[in-house]
């Protein structure tokens, strides 16, 4: 397999954001829809596959360090994401990564009821929250967690929403407080001044 960074045309030092952007640009360029019906479409599909694999590889590599996606015992949805299978959910995730929510929604909506498991609920929740429909979004995410309680990804999404909800109202009257004029603030400011003075050869507070 080729070096995934080479495939995406970015240096190893690229940030997550840059990786995502490079992937998105390439995926848009090489998306099968652009070449529908053309003779060489099969060749383009190879390229698209390569790009997807490269992106997955980088994601997996980076996720290994930061977030615990591929925990051993639990059935992580991430593994299904990287698996070679061509489920429609994988495509939905790609479309979401590319920002093509409307297309992703079409696939989600056309999923037969029998296949609407935890992952379907989760993806539906994600799409609705991008659309600002939080009441319904949270319902789907909650149901996803209910259907697959061990899944880290769904739990993480739920917790993110809960944190965001809990943050609401925190701004009330916070800006009318007297700022950092409390005892702790005053002391630390004095210590800081003293340290600075000492650096320059002087001394503000003799005893320390």
């Amino acid at each position: 397999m080729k070096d995934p960074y080479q495939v995406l045309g970015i240096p190893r030092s690229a940030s997550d954001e840059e990786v995502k952007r490079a992937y998105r640009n390439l995926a848009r360029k090489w998306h099968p829809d652009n070449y529908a019906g053309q003779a060489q479409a099969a060749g383009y599909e190879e390229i698209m596959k390569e790009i997807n694999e490269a992106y997955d590889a980088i994601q997996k590599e980076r996720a290994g360090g930061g977030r615990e996606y591929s925990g051993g015992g639990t059935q992580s949805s991430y593994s299904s994401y990287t698996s070679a299978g061509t489920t429609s959910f994988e495509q939905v995730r790609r479309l979401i990564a590319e920002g093509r929510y409307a297309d992703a929604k079409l696939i989600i909506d056309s999923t037969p009821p029998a296949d609407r498991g935890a992952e379907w609920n989760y993806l539906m929740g994600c799409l609705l929250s991008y659309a600002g429909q939080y009441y319904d979004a949270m319902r789907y995410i909650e149901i996803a967690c209910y259907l697959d309680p061990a899944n880290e990804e769904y739990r993480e999404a739920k917790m993110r929403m809960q944190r965001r909800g809990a943050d609401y109202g925190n701004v009330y009257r916070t800006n009318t407080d007297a700022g950092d004029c409390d005892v702790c603030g005053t002391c630390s400011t004095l210590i800081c001044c003293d340290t600075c003075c000492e650096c320059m050869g002087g001394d503000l507070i003799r005893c320390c």
Partner: protein
Amino acid sequence: MFGYVRPLVTELKVSEAERYRALYCGLCRAMGHATGQLSRLTLSYDFTFFAAVRLILEGAAPVFAPMRCPAHPASRRLTVEPHPTLTFTAALSAAMADAKTDDDFADERGFSRVKPALRKPFTASISRRAAKLLPPDTDAQIEMRLARLAERERAGCPSLDETASLFGDLLGFLFGLGLDGERASLASQIGTAVGKFVYLCDAADDLADDVRRGRYNPIAAGWGPLALEDGRLSPMVKSSLSASAPIGLEALGEATEDLDPAHVFTPIVKNIVYLGLPASLGRVLDGRKAEKTGGMPGKERL
């Protein structure tokens, strides 16, 4: 109407609590003048909030004066003096009371229809008086929006966002009514967000009752068998609503940040928006009834 739009009194400054009550009393008085003494029974916290928002947006400087009131004959109470905005609010409140009666009548079956049917002549008469104080097609506009909502409800719409947005539309329309330009859009932004939230609270509040009586409930329609547990809101529904409802309020918080910070009613509106509404949600999710807070006007109908 619903009574969910009220301040968290314990977090108000004493002066703010007093001014809030003065506004409440002022609105009550305005209702007496605009639509008849009996209409004062339909006084609500929701329209007090409406009046506060409109007074801020209009840059009105309300005058506070101690006045006597038949409900509290012993002492004079600080009251907001008559103001066109209060009269307007009173008229809208009456129009909504009538629309609510029609709505209840359409929702109920059999014996439960008696209450709205008995109320109808009264709300119809105050609404007729109110119509003279409102733009000509207000009633029709309200009806049109409620009909749109009722249609989705009859269809058993499983999306709480969808039905709540339709109710939000109605409140957005009411809040923006008679304003223009930027103030109108800010007002309808506030109304829309409050409407969505109120609809959610109401749905959660009525869930057990609606399910028992086989009526439509947007939460039951979406959650199906997961909605209830032992006849009460299931922990899943609670967890879902307690996260998503405040997120839905973020837009409301942003809108209130654009209100004139120097106006006397702005801190009260912010209290309602940031603390009062989440407190109401908490009450509903815990299945508690609103407690009568000491020193606050306690009576509310509709």
